[in-house]
């Protein structure tokens, strides 16, 4: 071990030991946990009430007839949705941007199992789902159920908000891989994503989750910046990387391909001090060659 490594150990320990955690850390944690547990109970009651209301009405789940004429011309066909997963890209309320809880997005999957069709969604807390009928214009959900884990209060609130949204028989449109759901003043826009080997590329194991470098310069040379700036999960670690420099030498694009799919595309720009990420997209089905 050389002198620098010894100095590093000493300096990091000395620097860390200068700061003490705040004395009320425990109180803050338990307060947040307790709030989360209370919301979790409320959420269970909500789902339970939904089940009770539906079964009391004589319906184990709701299968509705087609609604043919309650709006403008349909965009996309119900069959376009099956087997696909979508992730939210924009949410608005009364035309204004609606901010989701930090580090969350809405992921929505339409699936078919044993001849029955369902929809499942998650927004960073519980996974919730229902049997579904998709008419030419609306999503008609049956009995809604899901996991019941305790989460931060804001995440619990978001779960309940989404349950209310899907209960309201939202109108849907599907065009150019973009699914738009609207109900009342709420609009949720989602993009279709690509999956491979059962891996959801925008989920916890996905490529997006391991891009964690900042937009600050990551390296003086482009190759160094690329290696420092971007990391693929082990499942796709063998992805082929192609670097294309712009003719002016000021920008470059790195394309990652895995099993004939373009899984990520990262743009770099020359900045003071080297190269830095200027933009990135992962599991981009619209990437060249995919």
């Amino acid at each position, binding site marked *: 071990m050389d002198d620098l*490594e010894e*100095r590093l150990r000493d300096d990091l320990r000395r620097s860390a030991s200068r700061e003490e955690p705040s004395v009320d850390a425990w109180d803050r*944690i338990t307060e947040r946990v307790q709030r989360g547990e209370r919301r979790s109970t409320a959420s269970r009651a909500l789902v339970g009430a939904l089940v009770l209301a539906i079964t009391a009405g004589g319906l184990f789940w709701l299968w509705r007839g087609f609604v043919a004429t309650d709006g403008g011309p349909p965009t996309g066909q119900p069959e376009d949705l099956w087997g696909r997963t979508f992730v939210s890209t924009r949410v608005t309320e009364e035309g204004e941007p609606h901010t989701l809880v930090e580090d969350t997005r809405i992921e929505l999957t339409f699936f078919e199992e044993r001849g029955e069709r369902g929809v499942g969604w998650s927004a960073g807390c519980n996974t919730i789902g229902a049997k579904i009928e998709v008419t030419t214009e609306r999503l008609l959900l049956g009995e809604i159920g899901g996991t019941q884990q305790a989460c931060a209060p804001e995440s619990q609130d978001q779960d309940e908000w989404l349950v209310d949204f899907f209960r309201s028989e939202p109108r849907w449109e599907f065009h150019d891989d973009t699914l738009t759901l609207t109900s009342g003043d709420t609009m949720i826009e989602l993009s279709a994503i690509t999956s491979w080997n059962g891996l959801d590329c925008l989920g916890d194991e996905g490529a997006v989750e391991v891009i964690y470098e900042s937009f600050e310069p990551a390296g003086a040379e482009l190759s160094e910046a690329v290696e420092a700036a971007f990391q693929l999960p082990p499942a796709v670690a063998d992805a082929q990387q192609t670097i294309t420099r712009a003719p002016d030498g000021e920008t470059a694009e790195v394309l990652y391909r895995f099993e004939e799919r373009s899984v990520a595309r990262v743009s770099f720009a020359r900045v003071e001090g080297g190269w830095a990420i200027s933009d990135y997209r992962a599991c981009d089905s619209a990437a060249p060659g995919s």
Partner: protein
Amino acid sequence: MVVSELGVGSGREGLRRAFEEHYARLFRLCLLLAGHRELAEDIAQDVFVRAAARLETLTPPETGPYLRKAAVNVWRNRLRRRALERRTPWRSVASTTESPEAVVEERERLWPAVLRLPARQRACVVLRYYEDLSEQETARVLGCSVGTVKSQTSRALARLRERMHHG
């Protein structure tokens, strides 16, 4: 089964035990990664809140590594979001100086230079030299290969040497 064999987890008692055993160290790990006291506290608390239910199923030897990995994940998610939002850099507690003596001492310190490293290099350095993790353990925490840990750490040390030589 005795209580100690139940891991950290029988409800709030387990959370309390995990807090007492791991919180301070986790906070300092977050501080070294983030360079900002309030942010470090926020990340460490976030980890405990999110892990409260999971802690019931973990044994004591599993708890520390689980919390450490969760903290690194939360930190890099915050970093990613910050990068996306292109906010101005956080004010770093590593760069504050109060006196001429502190200025001299500051020049000799390595942590401020560590905070200027790209995130993955910084994570490798902090996990290897503060947490004393092996290359294999560091790779598991970061979800990358051992080769990546080696190359990133090597590159980080080269940068630090360069910065030490050039002030």
